[in-house]
């Protein structure tokens, strides 16, 4: 509510951001859609032919796509379970009165700030290396044969690395939500004879449900595009064992120069991400009307 002058000024001030983002979205998206209907390889310029849905057909009938699809689901799903479950436990732990809480908090959130390339390489070499890695030494000390993490259980290794990176995020957000919990309500429940277990189940968990939803949705968006961690550790292999849809599109585009196929894959990735995004946008939008 203001004058026509301020409203006009407001439109003018919002214009650059809105127009730039619109261009950023519409132009590449339109191009992706267009390319996805062409037979278009960067190695053979000038040979572009309209092929309709052939690229999609090719992409979807490629067994690699279904493996990548499955890998993506397994990876995102496991990381969500690990980070949300671990995040709740950690948040509950950090919410307890302890000595040196600040320092523990700093240690716990640190992995989130480590650049993905660094954490992937540190895990790959310093920790997971089959000969010189710390895990190998620990296994040998305990009398086991060390395993070669990245070739024997590649997907699990990736899941471990990425979970380590995202656990702090879940913890931090759940801890913030936990700290806004009504202490009097907890005390009232305690007076009413509710034990720690039922207090957690009936009061704490419902209070956290909103934060948990937000964590799941935001992480899903980011996890669907995990890239650097795969690139520097396994390169999608061995075979297709750690190839996700994001990585598959990258290979198609920048290693095989197949613009048409990569674009079709990109469109599929967009559709998948949008299914999640709709839910996320709704839950954030609700928060706007207060």
């Amino acid at each position, binding site marked *: *509510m*203001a*004058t*026509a*002058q301020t409203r006009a000024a407001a439109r003018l001030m919002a214009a650059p951001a809105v127009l730039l983002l619109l261009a950023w979205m519409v132009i590449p998206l339109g191009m992706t859609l267009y390319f996805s209907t062409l037979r278009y390889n960067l190695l053979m310029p000038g040979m572009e032919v309209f092929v309709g849905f052939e690229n999609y057909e090719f992409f979807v009938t490629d067994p690699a796509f279904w493996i990548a699809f499955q890998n993506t689901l397994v990876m995102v799903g496991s990381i969500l379970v690990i980070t949300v479950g671990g995040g709740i436990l950690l948040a509950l732990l950090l919410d307890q009165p302890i000595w040196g809480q600040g320092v523990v908090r700093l240690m716990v959130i640190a992995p989130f700030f480590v650049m993905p390339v660094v954490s992937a390489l540190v895990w790959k070499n310093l920790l997971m290396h089959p000969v010189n890695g710390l895990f190998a030494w620990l296994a040998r000390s305990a009398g086991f044969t060390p395993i070669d993490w990245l070739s024997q259980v590649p997907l699990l290794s990736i899941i471990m690395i990425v979970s380590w990176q995202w656990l702090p995020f879940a913890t931090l957000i759940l801890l913030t939500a936990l700290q806004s919990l009504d202490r009097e309500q907890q005390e009232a429940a305690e007076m009413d004879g509710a034990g720690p277990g039922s207090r957690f189940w009936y009061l704490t968990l419902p209070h956290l449900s909103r934060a948990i939803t937000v964590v799941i949705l935001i992480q899903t968006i980011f996890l669907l595009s995990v890239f650097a961690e795969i690139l520097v550790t396994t390169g999608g292999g061995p075979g297709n064992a750690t190839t996700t849809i994001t990585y598959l599109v990258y290979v198609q585009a920048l290693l095989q120069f197949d613009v048409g196929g990569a674009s079709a894959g990109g469109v599929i990735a967009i559709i998948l991400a949008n299914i999640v995004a709709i839910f996320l946008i709704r839950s954030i939008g609700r928060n706007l009307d207060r």
Partner: protein
Amino acid sequence: MGKIELRAVRKAFEATEVIPDLDLDIEDGEFAVFVGPSGCGKSTLLRLIAGLEDVTSGRIDIDGRDMTRVAPAKRKLAMVFQSYALYPHMTVRRNIGFPLKMAGLDRAAIDRKVEDAARILNLTPYLERRPGELSGGQRQRVAIGRAIVREPAAFLFDEPLSNLDAALRVNMRLEISELHQKLGTTMVYVTHDQVEAMTMADKIVVLNAGRIEQVGSPIELYSRPANRFVAAFIGSPKMNLIDGREAERQGAAAIGVRPEHIRVSRDEGAWKGTVTVVEHLGSDTFLHVDVPGVTSINARTPGEYGIKPGEPVWLTPEEGRIHRFDREGRAL
């Protein structure tokens, strides 16, 4: 100079009409108070005069010049907000000096004017502090200071005292009245508190649902309310409003009598009733009396009046102090 004229001013937000077609004159040097219940449009009206909102239609003249489409800063008005709206990151000196800086005055002139204003408002010792370090009353004075340095044609006050505690409110009320005496500038003051309106105003504008119910001096409104709404809104405690047979007997749809215009007696009078609650204020005693066939009546007796709940009492409205209203609520 500061004459404000509103002609056929109308304001609608989308489909809802907040102010339907309103005319009003505020004379130069007048202290005008807009009063009404919350949501009556009084603050919107003030913001229309300030230029913070556009009128949907109509015209606003200030000093005979059409200001309807002029930007707020160019209307030569100064406003004191309910929240004071001080700049928290600036010292008192810079807060008061801000409008002068925006007007492009040089440092020396700004300092001189700021110090003059600070002297009038007893703010000199606080000039280098920030708003966060001041009490509510001091913040209020800074907000006023920021308004006076501009030497505006009129001051606009939007419920300036509602954030202060009761004792401070009485003090500030006096200070603002004194300021008006000293400066002689037009002031337009919005409040929901009829006591503020009665004590400060030259002219009270009673608003209800965007319409002007009555305009007049405090005494006019008190003694000759134009309708039931004004009758009930002005005066404390509220006027007793009685309808039904008792009103018909007086030839009206409803009659009203203020508590202070009812004589109380233990043995004779017009209405016989039973005391339900007694409120002792020391200076006065208020009796809530249940009168069968009339209603519950509030009566005021000066000084201490020894009576207990449950005891019978006689009430007599003073002749000539009875207000009569027709079926539409208009005064007869």
